[in-house]
């Protein structure tokens, strides 16, 4: 089954983080991505740029980011192939983001077309 991991963290932490710490975090994500690939669980992933670069479009018009949604913002995603929910949660727990923000795990809804 396919699952989407939605990675949320406090993006303002990134603005104040020193380069060494940033390097450590990047390294953790690369290692995590690699572990997913080696286990054939990886489908896709990407980090997102700061939410101030984002826009929201509704019928009423366009809103510029950043959006005041709370302390943690969507900052990236992984799409993984897992045996079942337990397996997906097992992977999500290893995601570096789970240590300092939260990872929302959503099964991808399969629609026959």
């Amino acid at each position: 089954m396919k699952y989407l991991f939605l990675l949320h963290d406090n993006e303002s932490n990134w603005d104040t983080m020193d380069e060494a710490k940033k390097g450590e975090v990047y390294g953790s994500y690369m290692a995590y991505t690699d572990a997913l690939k080696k286990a054939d669980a990886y489908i896709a992933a990407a980090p997102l740029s700061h939410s101030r670069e984002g826009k929201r479009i509704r019928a009423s018009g366009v809103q510029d980011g950043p959006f005041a949604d709370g302390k943690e913002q969507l900052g990236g995603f992984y799409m993984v192939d897992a045996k079942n929910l337990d397996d997906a949660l097992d992977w999500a727990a290893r995601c570096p983001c789970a240590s300092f923000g939260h990872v929302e795990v959503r099964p991808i809804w399969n629609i026959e077309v």
Partner: protein
Amino acid sequence: MSDARAIAEETARASYGRLLAWLSSRTSDVAAAEDALSDAFRAALESWPMKGVPDAPEAWLLTAARRKLIDGSRRRKTRAEATPALTLAAEEAEATARSKATFPDERLKLLFICAHPAIDSSIRTPLMLQTVLGLDAARIASAFLLSPAAMSGRLVRAKRKIKSAGIPFDPPGVEDLPSRLSAVLEAIYAAFGAGWDEADGAEAEMMDLTREAIYLARLVTNLLPDEAEAWGLLALMLHAEARTKARRINGVYVALKDQNAALWDRGLVAAAEEALSRAWSCRKIGPFQVEAAIQSAHAASILYQRDTTDDIAALYAQLTDLSPSVGAQVGYAAALAAAGRPEDGLYALDEITGALAERYQPYWAVRAHILRTAGDAASAVTCYERAIGLSRDAAVRSFLIDQKNTAAKRA
């Protein structure tokens, strides 16, 4: 927590467990017994620490619970049919509580019920924490990463099953005892593990679950003093508990060999050694005893600067025989390397086949460590990266990143 308070809470908990064991083994209805006692137990937790522990704690609890029982099913969630049997059992219990100095301890029956083969293994530990110790479902839920509602639901279903499936409250016979006891011990160890994980969480409050697990293991050793593995489990947990303050400094994980032994709780180390020698005196070897002996050898090497690396490797070899698991095999590999046999260590790792190793973080961390010690820094870096990608804990992750950077400098 003040001593008086701790004693009051411990007595309240022990009395609660004794009464619950007594009532539910006579009615086969754990949920109804819990329901009848829960308010009384809560009142005891409020009152005893302030006013002192009553002379006959069980009688006190029963008096407090009685009104609720007489009230019948009006307010109660319990089915009305449970009331007569429960009332009868409570009256009998009250007579016993008033006539005897100590109330009979049947908590062993509860422990065995909770870890019965018919009960799903994932709910055994929570069930034990709730029934024997009276912990509330919300607290148990947070330790097991479940919502309180989901945890309550599972607990309710397990208790319903005990009643509807007619799981007997008699303790297992001689034949079944070893396997049934090992299920009890496994469930207690799982509580300890959940407490450990909680303590690892960056912001999570220390959950005290490790202490509850130690309490349960002590209870088993009191009730079954000739069971070597119960003593072994107790010794193992006490050794780990003794190192709590040293194993993480400001959120940074500290490997055992780098720990400041001055931060160890020497009283707990001594208690662990005593439990281990009680275990040996039973003359029945088992995996928990071997694991405890490994921890004991580690402690000796640090406290008395003794080289115990060969002993540890031999103990791990024994452990892989007694209870083969990936964890034991990886530990064996690390122990061989520490004893100056890195090639044998790598060979032991190679014996673990693909899929199991693939996702097991310690496998990669140990492989990386052995390769680094053997001078193959480039391969070590690759393996450290695998371990980093598989770790779940920020402190362990930064520890591994540190190790990787050190190895990379030499590559």
